[in-house]
Every structure is written in structure tokens, then in C-alpha cells.
């Protein structure tokens, strides 16, 4: 990866969900938000998602490349091997509903390539997977991110999947799966 985590002093949030980037724009706080924290997203999002949001003036395109160029957004890129590692831990069927952006971020978490970052997502199965990896503390809801970065956005203004309650519910489900081994492959004997 062509970036240095060691130089980052602001909290690093991985926004592997294009909807979260869109939501922050929709709320009109993107610029202030990037002043408060360092944002990372996955290469899959950058390569695939044409990001737009609706404003009173019509559809507005979010130029992620502009933010990458000015350092506001860091790109995280997983390798095929990183991705293979996640399929060694989870049953393929469990990962089917997880979005590709989240899968890429999760594979980087498994590979321990982003140790100090917090993974912010609104993807229920991805949150569960995080808990099943025993990495619940590496995840954060968008509502909590706003709280930590000093933005007072009432939960009523946020869709349910961005709320802390949603995040905690899915972390709980993931912890339960961890105990029952649901969705996890048996550990290989070394």
C-alpha cells in the first residue's frame, strides 16, 4: 500500500460503504468532517461506484479522486490473497450478502494491515462478520463517528442503518454467531 499510517494523527475511519460517503455529503458536512478525521475507503469503491447525491440543485457528483489528491481520503487496496483469507475463515454462504467494499475492508482487517483504523459501515452482515473475527472494537457506527468528531446529528436525521442501535444489534448477532460457530469454517489444523 502506498500510504503511511504512522503519519496519521487524526482518527482514521474506514468508510467502506459508499452510502456513508454519500450520507455525509447529503448532510452537507463533508468538508468539516474531513478536518476532524482521516478518511479511508477501499479501492473497490473508488474503482466502481459513481458517487452521487441529491441536493435541492439536482444530482451532485462526489469526486472521490479530488479528495484522494488532496489527501482527505486514503485508498486501501486488498490483494487477492487478502481476500482469499476471509473465505478461509467464513463459510462462503455467510459472506454472500456482504457488499464487496466491506469484504475488501474486512480482508484488510484480517490481514492486520490497518491496525488503528475504525471500520464504519451500515452493512449488517459485515458488522456481524467483524464481531465473528473478535474485532468488535474495530467497528463503529456512523452515529458514533459523528459523536466522536463533534457533530451533533440527531439519530432521527439518520437512516436506521447508520444508527448506533443498528450497529450494536448486528455486533450482538455476530458475537452470538462466534459462540455457535455459525457461518465460520472449522479452524484448520496446522
Amino acid at each position, binding site marked *: 500500500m502506498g500510504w503511511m499510517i504512522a503519519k496519521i494523527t487524526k482518527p482514521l475511519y474506514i468508510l467502506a460503504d*459508499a452510502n456513508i460517503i454519500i450520507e455525509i455529503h447529503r448532510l452537507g458536512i463533508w468538508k468539516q468532517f474531513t478536518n476532524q478525521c482521516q478518511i479511508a475507503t477501499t479501492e473497490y469503491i473508488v474503482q466502481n461506484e459513481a458517487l452521487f447525491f441529491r441536493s435541492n440543485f439536482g444530482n451532485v457528483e462526489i469526486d472521490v479522486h479530488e479528495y484522494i489528491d488532496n489527501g482527505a481520503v486514503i485508498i486501501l487496496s486488498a490483494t487477492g490473497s487478502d*481476500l482469499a483469507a476471509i473465505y478461509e475463515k467464513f463459510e462462503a454462504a455467510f459472506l454472500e450478502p456482504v457488499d464487496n467494499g466491506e469484504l475488501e475492508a474486512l480482508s484488510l482487517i484480517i490481514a492486520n494491515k490497518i491496525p488503528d483504523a475504525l471500520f464504519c459501515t451500515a452493512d*449488517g452482515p459485515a458488522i456481524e462478520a467483524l464481531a465473528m473475527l473478535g474485532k468488535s472494537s474495530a467497528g463503529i457506527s456512523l452515529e458514533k463517528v459523528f459523536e466522536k468528531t463533534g457533530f451533533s446529528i440527531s439519530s432521527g436525521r439518520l437512516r436506521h442503518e447508520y444508527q448506533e442501535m443498528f450497529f450494536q444489534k448486528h455486533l450482538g448477532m455476530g458475537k452470538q454467531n462466534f459462540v455457535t460457530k455459525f457461518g465460520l469454517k472449522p479452524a484448520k489444523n496446522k
Partner: protein
Amino acid sequence: MELRKLLAERIRAAREQLGLTQNQLAEISGFSSAQIISQIEKAERDIKAWELFNLARALKTDVAVLLAENATAPMAHVLWRKTPTQNRRLLESDFLQRCKEYALVEKLNDITTDTQLPVTAVDLSLLTFQDAEKMGREMRDGLGLGNRPASCLANMLENKFGVKIWYANLGEDGSAASTKGPFGLGVLINSAEAPWRRSYSFAHELFHLLTWDAVALTDKTKGESSGHIEKLAEAFASNLLLPDTEIEEALRARVKENKIEYAGLVEIAREFGVSTVALLWRLKNLHYINSDAVQKLEDDSDFQQLDRNVRNGAWNMPPAIPERFVRLAFRAFQNGKLSRAKLAEFLKTSLLDLSDFLLEYGLDDSKDYKTAVHTGGR
């Protein structure tokens, strides 16, 4: 095997299976040049995760299948009514992938498709037309399709028996296809067909689903059943969609002095949701008219013109994505089992247009549909 080599082999095999060139695959996957594909297939280059996602999508498969240590089960077979002359593999892979997605959204809604169609074991080589006709009648009654079966057949197959129904513009090439796999049963209908022809296709494909296990592997591999089986499917469909007593009643109401006006015939076909040609052949089999009369009517331009004029108003396009699939995917999203991005991907729309797309199906993603009502414990 080393991952790079494993992926090289799997990607090349999947590309060749679809009949794509390296150039085509590069273009569909969003790669800048075919050289990247060439390097990947020669195991000269590592693949990034995002590239693998894009390749899997372009190859109509899953990343899990490409990465699996052991080769996964072969693709399910698809039986065509008329095999497409172009892009057959692409159409089949797309259809099968959509069936898998359909099964996934069912699973996310805790819906099991173990409700089986009442299949009876048959030996297709010994099955007569009379047997197929009897099967059609029995199936109509068994499924509770009533007196106008075409009006509810697709709904019943999809909602009660979990048959995955998809539409694709197959043009003049192929009129319909059916499949059976780990995802259950699936039917592909030609969206370019007239609605009354689609009804017939549902009934025709139902015969293939019911007799799937009896079809020879050679036919399944070829992708097309024998002419005899196709004719059996026609006999089955005709009897399923056009109940003799109901047809007789409809006919009696319109016959005067042993004659029925052209408009009367078109009316009956419309009422039963079938093409006039299908009705004419059914009348022939019920001995109301003979083959010559059928042929004469089929060649009669006045009759054809009248048919077209009357039917024009009844033309409708099927939904791009089946309504049930949209509802189930949306419900999975609302219950936190599917992300918004995945929902958009499944519905083949963009994140920006997702809300509008859902509204077309009467679903408002700003609303909570999870509010429940107590059913009294029954």
C-alpha cells in the same frame, strides 16, 4: 496450488466457457487493456481484490467460486425451448446467477422453497400425448388454477412454489428456458413475447420442471430436449391453460348457426390469456374445427389484422426485475440482512436511483415496513 495459478486457470476456464475474448472480458470488467487479462491468465500478475470482484461479476460467477480450494459443482443445466444462436452461455450464466441471487434473498427472509411441485415420476420416452394432456388437466386442478389458469399460473408458480421467474429479451432466438439447481427451480421467459405467448411459455416450461429428472443428461448438456418432449410440453400446456368445459361454454355462448365470428375467437383467446393460434389448435383437438380450418385462419390476413387490433391494448411488458424478488430483497435490506449497496446491485440500479426504483414497485425506503400486527395466535 498457488493462488495466482489457481485464479489464472479458473478465470481462463470461465471466460472460455462464456465464449468471451480477452478483449471483451477486459472491457466488461472495466480494465484498461486485454493485456491485464492475458497476464492474469498466464499467472504473471497478482490480482487485486477489486479486480477479482469485477472479474467475477463479468464472468457471472462468485468470488467464492473462483477462490475455492476445490472446484465447485458444475453449473446447473438450462433447457431451452429453442436454443439461442448467439450468446447462449452468457444468457445461461446470467440466468443462473440471478436464480442464485433469488435463492439468497429468500434465505435472508427465512423462506425455504421446500414446497415442491407435485412431480410424478415419468418415463418420457413412454409418455403419450394423452398422458401429457392428462398431466396438464391434473396439474391445473392440483395447483388450484381455476377456470382461467393463465391469469394466475405465474403468480402461483412464483409465490407458492418458489419458482424463480426471470425475463430477458431473447428476441426471435429463444422463447423460454427452464432450470433446476441448488437454488431450486427457475424459468426464463422472453420479455419480447406478447403476454399471451408468455402465459403459454409458463405452462410449457412447467412441464419441463415437472419432468426435469426424467430428461436425459445428453439433452440437458445439449440444452434442448427432443422434438417429442417439446410436443408433449405443448399438449400439456394446452390442456392446462384451456379447460375443455370452460372452452366449450365460451364457444357455445358465441356460436350461432354453427358459426363463430372472427371477433368471437379473438375474444375467447384473450379471455383465457392465450394466443389465438393456441386456441385454434385446442379447438381442433376438441374436434370443433379441423386442421384445414386452423391453417386457413392462420393464413387469413383479415383474421390476423383483427387479432392484432384487439390485442394491441392488452400488450404489457413484464417487470424488468420480478416483483417478488424486489419485495424480498427490500425486506432483507429493511431487516439489516442486506446492505443498501448490495440491494442496488441486485436490483441492477445505482445508489442514486435506488429510491426511485423502489417507488416504482410501491416501496418507500424512507419508511419502516417492519411494524407488525398481531395475528391472534392462529
